[in-house]
């Protein structure tokens, strides 16, 4: 019974996501595509940050790699920015594989640095990515970017053609609708795989590495390899997310994969509640949709100045509200959106979890005291093994 209850929100969510295209306008469909692409990337990042305790600001690099891998391998042979003409399904898989390989190449650093230090080191990747995107013109199309071949399986295209008319329950299914279901399937798969991984031997080993490297090593976990595994997995997710972004845009250019994208991924998972897959999804949706919603509706507020008149405009207000929302979540919601949701559930369900335990006993005296100032990082930035 409680099992069923726990699954209810998920089932409802999936149901809503599946039915939404029947009602939503193109705007919401398009925004939804971006949100779902972001969800995939955020799940990957939360596996790295939340489960393994490693930070990455290099996700834009892996997303770019995935996007261009898809565009290049699925692209038509010949033309200005040539392609390999592979089937799009294969290209989508390759997007993940190539990003994972690149993640593995970074292992000398990702296996040795921990936490926020790794995060800063990976900033470099974003700039490296940009340099490559701009200079490898035959593959990337340079500054102007390149078009992205629409996704298709034999006999069915996820664009407006082939078959050029599909309807479900009387609603015409255009490219956006078709992509929506493709994206939804990928998101569900990504979430399912992510959840399995989190609850598996690998996931437990990663969590142990995060909490105590020494203890993990003593249990037979190869600490450096575990970190590399987490980094590679999360790179693969980012690669797939990049390919989805490419499909959602239809055309990609270097500007789409800047540092801002990496930062946005990080905002998503922190707002959602680090380590939680549902939180990553919620955070991604929040970050992608909130600015759009604010821009759409803030202009309806009465006290605002019209654009160009120098007063506080709707657009500026929307941006300020977005920043304020981020700050408010961090100040008031412990554990982010997921943490708040689970507290809400607990409060409704039953009393605090630790009543009825055995008589408490004092903790050891010699435990390493927690950092005295909030947020003081661990003193060591490298791992020992």
């Amino acid at each position: 019974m409680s099992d069923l209850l726990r699954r209810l929100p998920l089932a409802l969510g999936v149901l809503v996501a599946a039915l939404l295209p029947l009602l939503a306008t193109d705007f919401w469909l398009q925004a939804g595509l971006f949100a779902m692409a972001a969800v995939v990337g955020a799940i990957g990042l939360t596996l790295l940050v939340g489960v393994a305790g490693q930070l990455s600001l290099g996700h834009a690099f892996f997303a770019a790699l995935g996007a261009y891998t898809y565009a290049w391998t699925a692209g038509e042979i010949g033309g200005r920015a040539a392609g390999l003409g592979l089937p799009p399904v294969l290209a989508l898989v390759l997007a993940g594989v190539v990003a994972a390989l690149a993640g593995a190449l970074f292992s000398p650093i990702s296996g040795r640095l921990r936490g926020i230090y790794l995060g800063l080191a990976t900033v470099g990747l974003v700039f490296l990515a940009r340099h490559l995107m701009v200079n490898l013109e035959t593959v990337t199309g340079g500054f102007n970017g390149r078009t992205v071949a629409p996704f298709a399986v034999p006999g069915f295209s996820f664009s407006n053609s082939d078959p050029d008319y599909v309807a479900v329950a009387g609603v015409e299914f255009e490219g956006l609708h078709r992509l929506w279901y493709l994206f939804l399937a990928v998101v569900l798969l990504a979430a399912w795989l992510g959840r399995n991984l989190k609850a598996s031997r690998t996931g437990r080993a990663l969590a142990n590495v995060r909490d105590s490297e020494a203890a993990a090593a003593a249990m037979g976990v190869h600490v450096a390899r575990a970190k590399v595994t987490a980094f590679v997995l999360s790179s693969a997710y980012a690669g797939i997310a990049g390919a989805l972004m490419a499909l959602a845009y239809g055309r990609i250019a270097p500007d789409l994969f800047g540092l801002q994208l990496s930062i946005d991924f990080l905002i998503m998972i922190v707002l959602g509640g680090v380590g939680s897959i549902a939180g990553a999804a919620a955070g991604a949706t929040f970050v992608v949709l909130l600015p759009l919603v604010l821009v759409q509706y803030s202009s309806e507020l009465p006290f605002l100045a019209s654009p160009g008149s120098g007063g506080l405009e709707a657009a500026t207000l929307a941006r300020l509200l977005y920043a304020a929302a981020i700050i408010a979540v961090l100040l008031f919601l412990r554990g982010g959106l997921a943490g708040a949701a689970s507290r809400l559930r607990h409060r409704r369900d039953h009393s605090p979890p630790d009543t009825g335990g055995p008589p408490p006993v004092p903790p050891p005296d010699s435990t390493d005291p927690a950092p005295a100032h909030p947020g003081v990082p661990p003193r060591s930035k490298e791992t020992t093994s």
Partner: protein
Amino acid sequence: MSYFLTQLANGLSYGLILGLIAVGFVIVFTSTGVLNFAHGSVLLTGAYLVAVLQDPIGFWAAVLVGIAGAALLGVLINAVLVRNLAEANPGTAAILMLGVDILLLTELTRRIGNRVLPIGAPWGADVVTFGGITLPTSRAIAAGLAVVVFGVLWFLFARTGAGVAMRAAAADGDTASLMGIRLTRTGAAGWALAGALAAIAGIFLASFPSPGIAPTLALTAFAAIPAWVLGGFDSVVGAIVGGLIIGVVTALAVGYESDLHFLGRGLGEVVPYAVMILVLLVRPSGLFGRQEAVRV
């Protein structure tokens, strides 16, 4: 040869300014554990204050207000926001600072508009020439002042009680507080110092050869991140050396770009990060970073 020296001088003076910014990152990080993504907008705030006040109250008074304003802004961010985080860890603190950065930058962008606000420095567009090298006066002054500032920092940290207390708190906050050192104060001092250094850097970054203040000035702080990281995250000396390395490497990459064409166009932007990654491959803790074994 004089061409090389000119580029070198350019790089060194720019590197010293980067050092000022990078030291701010280090101090905030060691005193409160925050990766300060809002450092750029604090820098811009300081410089903006100077630009708008230099006309009514004069340049030097404006400089004082700008530095004090940036320092105060840092202290406020720490006291009002950072210390009230629901969950204090480096990740949430960093994201908090991103939120703060968006807030500040949106407002400053709105105020500045598409104008370029001159900073009104008395040295204007003068240049100094020595030994065949031409350097903008502002850069020469910046370099000299940076050296003086670093000297003052050294004196502060090595010779004054407050400075030693800050270092103690950075090294081991818990023990430092047992000595009666108030971590709230060392934290505030760290943010104030970082803000002041950022404002100084901002003033020079907005001086000739730059035309003045534009919102993109805030992005310059990001250029100091590789300097900070390759210096070793928690080392003030490392940040300064990192700044110099990044400054010189960037200037040389730009200056000799035509000879380095096989590496692709736009080297100036990627080279600092490439250098940073190379350094980390050899020394994951950075050049001056502390390598400490984890105790069980």
